[in-house]
Each structure stands twice: as structure tokens, then as C-alpha cells.
């Protein structure tokens, strides 16, 4: 499977190992089944965009991948580590999986610098000087090194989300989860966040992105996955999705959103 887009270089994903394995995953909220028998394999360096109407379970699914939600049945394996009640496994997984939220969820009482260095210093026991250097490097990468000493409330939405991405990257994760990263942003700020994500994709990060940004999906994704009512309805390349979707529900969703 190779993509023909200009932004992502042709990569030989076939030879890569599966870094995420989900088998028959179920998730219930009381009587409501949020995930119904989801199985999926994602390869290292793959960029997967998850689509679906609200309430379809797409956010719930990626939140299961770092156990912000606990799955009720099935099996999830991240980079060879089984997701179970073992706290050591959970900590190992969480330090390999970074997450970016719709509402940014920056820590408002900490400066931008401390937001980013908190994880490395407290979890990885990195010395302060090293953590600060790493944070500055990441702020350069997301394009806002001059904001290091400000507080989140002093930044625009787009800047906050870029800090949130830097915060997640500071743990040097192998996988990045994005839960509707641009949905809470003003239109003029969406591009600056997508640009950072695109750069990240080019660098070879494994990414799972829940989004409604079809331009991003078309250009950057290796694979699109469509969720509806807790089930995985259809998956395929962007080309397949935008030119030749098979399922009725997919067609309906795409016709509404495009």
C-alpha cells in the first residue's frame, strides 16, 4: 500500500510491524454499547484518520488506546505490551502514547515551559536543564519558542493546541493520538495546527487522528477508517474513500460533510 500524495513520501508500510493491535474490543457505558467488536491493526509509522458522526465511538476508541477509557471485552496490545490491569504495563503504554485533546487541557496554573517539562521530569526523572532544553527544542518545532514563559490563558487557541502537541511529544512517544484537535479552534487557527501535525506525520510518527478536516485526511492519511454506531463500517485508502466508497452509511456521511 503506497500513497500517491506529494506530502507523504512513499513508504513501505508492508514491512513494518503492527504497533497497535485491537481484537474484538467492546465498550459499554451502562446500557449503551459505545464500541461493538472493533478489530484493527496499525503499523508503525502509519497515519490513520478516523471518521464518523458524533457519538459513533471514534473518540471512545482512541481513548481506549491509552486507557482513559477501560475496554470491557477484547484485547488491546500496544507495541507488544498487553493492556490490562497491571499498573506497570499501563505506565509503560502511557509513556509510549501521546495524546492531544479537543479542549487542549493545558495545565492553567503552570507556564508553557512547565506544562511541557512536567512529564519528562516527573515520569522520566529527566534533570531540569535537559527537560528545559528539550522543551525549547519542541517549542521551536511547533513554531512558538517566544511563548515559553507565558501561561496558557495568555495564548490563542491555536498556540495552546501547539503547546499541547509539544507537551505530548516531550515524552518522546512512539504513537500520537489526536482527538478532534482542531474542533475547538477558530477557523483562522486551524491551519497552524494542521501544519504542525503534517510535519509530525512526515517525520515518521505513528498517528491516529480523529478529525473532520477532510483536506488533512485526503493529503496526509495512509488509511481512513469510518465508524458508525460503535462499529467499524469501512476502511481503506483516501483514494478509495473519496472516489469509491462501498457502504451506504459511508456515502451518506461523506455527502453530508464534503
Amino acid at each position, binding site marked *: 500500500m503506497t500513497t500517491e500524495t506529494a506530502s507523504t513520501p512513499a513508504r513501505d508500510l508492508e514491512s513494518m510491524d503492527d504497533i497497535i493491535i485491537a481484537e474484538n474490543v467492546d465498550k459499554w457505558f451502562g446500557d449503551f454499547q459505545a464500541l461493538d467488536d472493533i478489530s484493527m491493526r496499525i503499523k508503525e509509522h502509519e497515519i490513520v484518520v478516523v471518521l464518523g458522526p458524533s457519538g459513533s465511538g471514534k473518540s471512545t476508541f482512541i481513548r481506549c488506546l491509552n486507557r482513559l477509557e477501560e475496554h470491557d471485552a477484547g484485547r488491546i496490545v500496544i507495541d507488544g505490551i498487553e493492556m490490562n490491569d497491571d499498573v506497570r504495563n499501563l*505506565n509503560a503504554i502511557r509513556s509510549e502514547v501521546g495524546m492531544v485533546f479537543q479542549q487542549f*487541557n493545558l495545565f492553567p*496554573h503552570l*507556564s508553557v515551559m512547565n506544562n511541557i517539562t512536567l*512529564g519528562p521530569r516527573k515520569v522520566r526523572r529527566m534533570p531540569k536543564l535537559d527537560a528545559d532544553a528539550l522543551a525549547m527544542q519542541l517549542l521551536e518545532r511547533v513554531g512558538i519558542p517566544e511563548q515559553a514563559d507565558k*501561561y496558557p490563558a495568555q495564548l490563542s487557541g491555536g498556540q495552546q493546541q501547539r503547546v499541547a502537541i509539544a507537551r505530548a511529544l516531550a515524552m518522546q512517544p512512539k504513537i500520537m493520538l489526536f482527538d478532534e484537535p482542531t474542533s475547538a479552534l477558530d477557523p483562522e487557527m486551524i491551519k497552524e495546527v494542521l501544519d504542525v501535525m503534517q510535519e509530525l506525520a512526515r517525520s515518521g510518527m505513528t498517528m491516529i487522528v480523529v478529525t473532520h478536516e477532510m483536506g488533512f485526511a485526503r493529503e496526509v492519511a495512509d488509511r481512513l477508517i469510518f465508524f458508525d454506531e460503535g462499529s467499524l463500517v469501512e476502511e481503506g485508502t483516501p483514494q478509495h474513500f473519496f472516489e469509491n466508497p462501498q457502504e451506504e452509511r459511508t456515502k451518506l456521511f461523506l455527502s453530508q460533510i464534503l
Partner: protein
Amino acid sequence: MVDMPAQNPQRIVLPPHRERARRPRIVRFREWARRNLFNSRAGTLLTIITAAILALLIYGVVYFVFVDANWRVITENRWLLFAGGYPMDQEWRLWFSVMFVFLLIGLTYGTWASLGRRDHLFIVLASGFAVLLLAHGGAAIWSTIWYLIAVGLLYAGYAITIRMPREAGPGRTVQQRSVAGLLIAALPIVLIVLLAFGGARPRELEGFVLNLVLAPVGIAGGLILAIPLALGRASRMRAISWTCTTYIEVVRGAPLLGWLFVALFILDDVIGGELIVRAMVVLAVFTAAYMAEYIRGALQALPHGQSEAAHAVGLNQFQSMQLIVMPQALRISIPPMVGQAISIWKDTTLVTVILPLRELKGNADSAIAQFEFTPDRIEAYVFVAVIFWVVAFIMSRISQRVEGSLGIGER
């Protein structure tokens, strides 16, 4: 277009409101009064009635304070009121504590806030009041000097810290941590200075000193107990949450007066020891129940995304609480906590009602029990009320400043 301003460059045309502002002050005052005080017949009537009542009140207060009152009941009994049974030859311990606390207030203001014109006015007025009291009769000239040195230390600490840079940096961090450390250590330090190494025995803490010891111990102890109580009540483990809920509801369900009876009779059999220690325990336990509820409210107000984000960057449950959730929850709960602190400050007078402990109000009772001063009970109680008000006012002002300076990272 003949009257172009450019033809007459000397004359600057001001908008109407600027024109008005340049009129003499007396004219502006007259206008303000007409608009706000005499805008209608009913308004004028109300203004006159209010002014008459105010004038009567002010006259009454001034007459009482300067003519009618016999303040000798205070000045003659100042040691009784302030320190009571504290050994007189250990007076330096009291002054040392006052100086230490004043210095700390200066350092705190210089580090996190600044003193405004009103603060200076308040300090000057309060100091004038204190000096008047201390220097009266000339006997206690040293007390006056000690007090003035304490005020000097307040300003010295303020002058040093206010000049230090406020921008984030290693120096700022050291400064903040040192002052915060001193603040946390202040209460134990003061208690050690007052009591340890040949100081007073606990039962010799009396008068205003006793209020000043009881309230901070109750507040600090309450806060320390309140945090685990709040977390426990919010816990998902039933046994823990029920235990904490029961504690909170039982303690809040009875008045402080009742719990002080417990300290007097029941705790005597259970833990024994100094009565004053039992009173401290009761005050802390009582305060904790209220503070725990304020913290729980703040925990619920905090967006769930905060702890999710903390977990997502790999922090464990304890780190997430310690570094992310609690700092924010405590800040949200500052206003009700200060309300509770002020309330417990005033409630320290209750130890006199129930326990044979003589705090300020209790010793005021002793003062007017002297035959010579029996007619002066109003003077004594007015004095006690003013002292309580001054301390409560300081607490409220400081908390406002703390809120203001912590507001920087507000969402």
C-alpha cells in the same frame, strides 16, 4: 468650511466632556451633588435624613471615644488583655514573635503583591492605635520601641523583596520557595519561641496571645485534615467515602460550642493532656469538616480533562493529584476558606465560654470584674471588638491580594 481648526492653531477644540473636566473643582462638585444627592424632591429629603443620621452617629462615636469613655480600663489592663498569665520576664518571646510575623508579612507582600496607598494608610493608622495604647502613661516605652522595630522590619522585608525581579527565572523560584517555606514554618517557629526552652507553659498562654495561637493552629490543622477528607469523600471506595462523609456530617451537625464541651469532658478521659491542646484539636477537627466541603466543591468544579491530561503525559494518580488537581482546587477554594478562617478566628472567643481558658474576651471580663472598672464594660468590649475586626480585616485583605496575584494563570 471656513472655521477649519487649522486656521487657528492655538485653539484646541476639546470634546464636551474634556471641557467640563477643566472647570473648577467646586463647580464639578456642585454638579455631582445635584445629580447624585439632590436630583429630585424625594432624593433631597433622603439625603437630608441620611446626613442627619450619619451626623448623629459620628457625633455619638466621637463623643464616646474622646469624652465619655474611660479608656483606663484598657491602658491599665493592657498586659492582662494581651498576654494575661504569660510570664512577664519572658516578654521578649512575644516581641520576637511579633517581629518575625511582621517581617514575614513584608516579605510576602513584596514577593507576591504590593502595598497600595490604602495599605500604607491602614498600617499607619493601626500603628498609631498600637503606639497610643503601648506608650500611654509612659511606663512601657520599650514595648513601643519593640513595636516600631517590628513595623520597621515589615517595611524592610517589603523593600527588599519588592525590588527583586518578578519575571520567572531561577532567582524568582528561589525567592518564592524561601518565602513560602518561611510561611509554612512560621506557626511551628512561633510556638517554639513562645513555649520551648524555658518559655511559658501552655496554660500560661492567655489573652490576645491565646487567640493568636488558637486560630492559626485551628486553621492550619483544619486545612491539613481537610485535604485527605475531601479526597476520601470523593473516593470510589465505599468504606473510605462513607467514613469521610460521616465525619463531615457529624462534625458539621453540632455547633462548635458543643464540641468544646467534648474537649472539656470527654477528650479529657480519652487523650487527657493540656486543656489548650484539646481545644486546638477540637478547633482543627471542626474547621476541617467545613474546609473539606469547600475543597470537594472545587474538585468537582475542575474540568475532568485536567486529570485526563495528567494521566496522558504519564503521571500516576498521586502525581496527578499533587501536581495538577490539588493546586487548582485549593486556589478555587480560597475565598470560602478565608471566610471559614475569619469565622474560626472570631469563634476562638468561645473557649472562654466553655473552657477555663482566658483569651482576649475572657480577660476583658476579668478586667471589668475589678471594682474600679465595673462601669467601663462598654469600653472593654468595644476595644475587644475593634481588635477582632482589625485582624479579620487583615485576613480578608491578604486573601484578596493572594487571589489577585494567583489569578495570572486563570483559565
